């Protein structure tokens, strides 16, 4: 689920940027530092949408670096248990398959794949129904439900299922081509 929230962070700036473009430099440094990171509490920071407030800088003794407390608005993405996501399959093995929904990695183990799909080993390992109409392989897009999340300080990992109504392959790239 996506959230638009305000976060705060302290940014250190080298003295050489102190000049007319200090603010722009500060914002670009903030983006570089923050976007794409993951915190267990808020989830993945997808994008910064605006800077609300830049506080008074504090010169650090000895180095000349200045620390600015910056308040910024950003879009974060945090997966929740029970949430439905669309994801791209990245790897298939006999234990199940891995998929990615943006930054988040999801593992679907084989007992959470519908009973009528069976693992086919080979060059392109996949899960296929007995009549061959549905196939899950690398780069397939699947709609899945998150069954559990493991949240570390800097990492979120999910377990998903496609064993439910309206879950499974959305469009098969093999069939499209």
């Amino acid at each position, binding site marked *: 689920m996506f959230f638009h929230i305000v976060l705060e962070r302290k940014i250190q700036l080298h003295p050489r940027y102190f000049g007319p473009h200090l603010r722009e430099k500060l914002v670009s440094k903030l983006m570089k530092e923050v976007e794409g990171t993951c915190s267990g509490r808020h989830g993945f920071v997808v994008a910064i949408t605006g800077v609300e407030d830049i506080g008074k800088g504090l010169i650090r003794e000895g180095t000349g670096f200045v620390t600015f407390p910056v308040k910024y608005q950003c879009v974060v993405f945090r997966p929740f248990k029970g949430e439905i996501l669309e994801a791209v399959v990245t790897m298939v093995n006999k234990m199940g398959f*891995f998929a990615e929904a943006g930054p988040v990695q999801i593992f679907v183990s084989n007992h*959470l794949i519908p009973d009528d799909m069976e693992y086919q080993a080979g060059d392109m390992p996949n899960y296929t129904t007995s009549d061959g109409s549905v196939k899950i392989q690398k780069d397939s897009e699947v709609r899945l439900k998150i069954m559990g999340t493991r949240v570390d300080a800097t990492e979120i990992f999910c377990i998903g*299922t496609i064993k439910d109504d309206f879950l499974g392959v959305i469009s098969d790239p093999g069939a499209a081509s």
Partner: protein
Amino acid sequence: MSLEPFNRLVKLAARAFYDDITMKGDNQPKTGRGDNRGIAVVVLDALTRRQWVREEDLAKALKLHSKQLRRILRFFEEEKFVTRDHRKESAKGAKIFSAAVAAAAGDGRGKEGEEKVKLHTHSYCCLDYAQIYDVVRYRIHKMKKKLKDELDSRNTVQTYICPNCAKRYSAFDALQLISYTDDLFHCERCDGELVAESDKLAADEMGEGDDNRSRRREKLKDLLQRIEEQLKPVTIQIARVKDLPVPDFGTLQQWEVRASAAGWRGYGEIDPNDANKSSQGYGGTPMPSLGDTKVEVDLGGGVKEEVQSEGKPTKAKVLPPWMIKKGMVLTKEQRGETSLDAEATTQETTIDDKKQADLKDDDKSLMDEYTKAYYAAYYAKIQEEEGGRQSVKQEEFGVSASDQDELFGTQETSSHRQVGMKSKRRNAEASYKLAADLNMEAKESEEEEEDNIDWEDG
């Protein structure tokens, strides 16, 4: 505080969960004689009729070898059914216990005290009702949960296990486990290939395979339903016991002190079953030296005697309304009947008594007429009771006898067990049904009691 519902729970649980537990001897040959399934139930049943008991006494009473009994008790200690206490004691220490037992038994027989006891460790055991209640509930909960989870495939976090070093991983570790050489999961410690752990019930019985899955599901459903059905008496009993105070005998020392104190007090008065003792929650007959079947028979007799001796004065005069509470247990009708039916009938009479007392204040002549009618009705009722009692009693004995039958039947037919497994199970079901019927009766009488109390208050 009554032991009866708890004892019933223990008995039901024993039959439900422990009736085919074998106490395997380490080097005993598996002959028909060595097969001792059902013993566990016998031991638990025996314990429901006792408080703290010395294990040798229990062994003697059950005609079991003390080693065998100890093995069973150790098993139940692990199952949290039984608390045990071991202590080194001399003849004197043993005497204290014997005195306590005798006091609890309400008779002066201190025979055990005279036995020559050397200074060595004696073990005592006692049912731990509070824990039994929790354990049984937990056990049922776990059984159901396991099946339900498997049914909904809700145990979604698949676990993986390393066949080499037996380290376990969950699906949450998948990202770390994946090896980029062969796309499989590898153990972090020994690099062995992990296998999915299948702790599934149904999967064990029929092999893996996709066409089996729907069948497995059906099987699970069936299993769950059967659990619900067959454990119903236990769950009902648990529900009934829920709000009752749990009988607690305390530790062995506490119990000894209390039991002997209560006993001595009992000697001073003539009635051995004074209020003090019943407050200890000792409902059954505490005769530790008697065998199983004997105790059951004596139960009826003992109650009869007590009630008779106590019932006589109440027959002579009508109790005033404020005494009715106490008089309820003592009315004549109750004589010879066991608690369930007796309560129900006495309630009715007490209501009548009360009515009568109220009338006394109003009008004498009217009252006289009423009393005449009342006594006529009363007499008719007694006659009716007399007739009905026989059948009731028989029915009751029929139940306990069938219980016994079932118990001993399982032992006797143990050699044919493999063949007769199914039929035996059906037997167990039947006995549950009987038990459930009795439960219904008990419930009815309880309700009546409540009604009565309300009426008196208003």
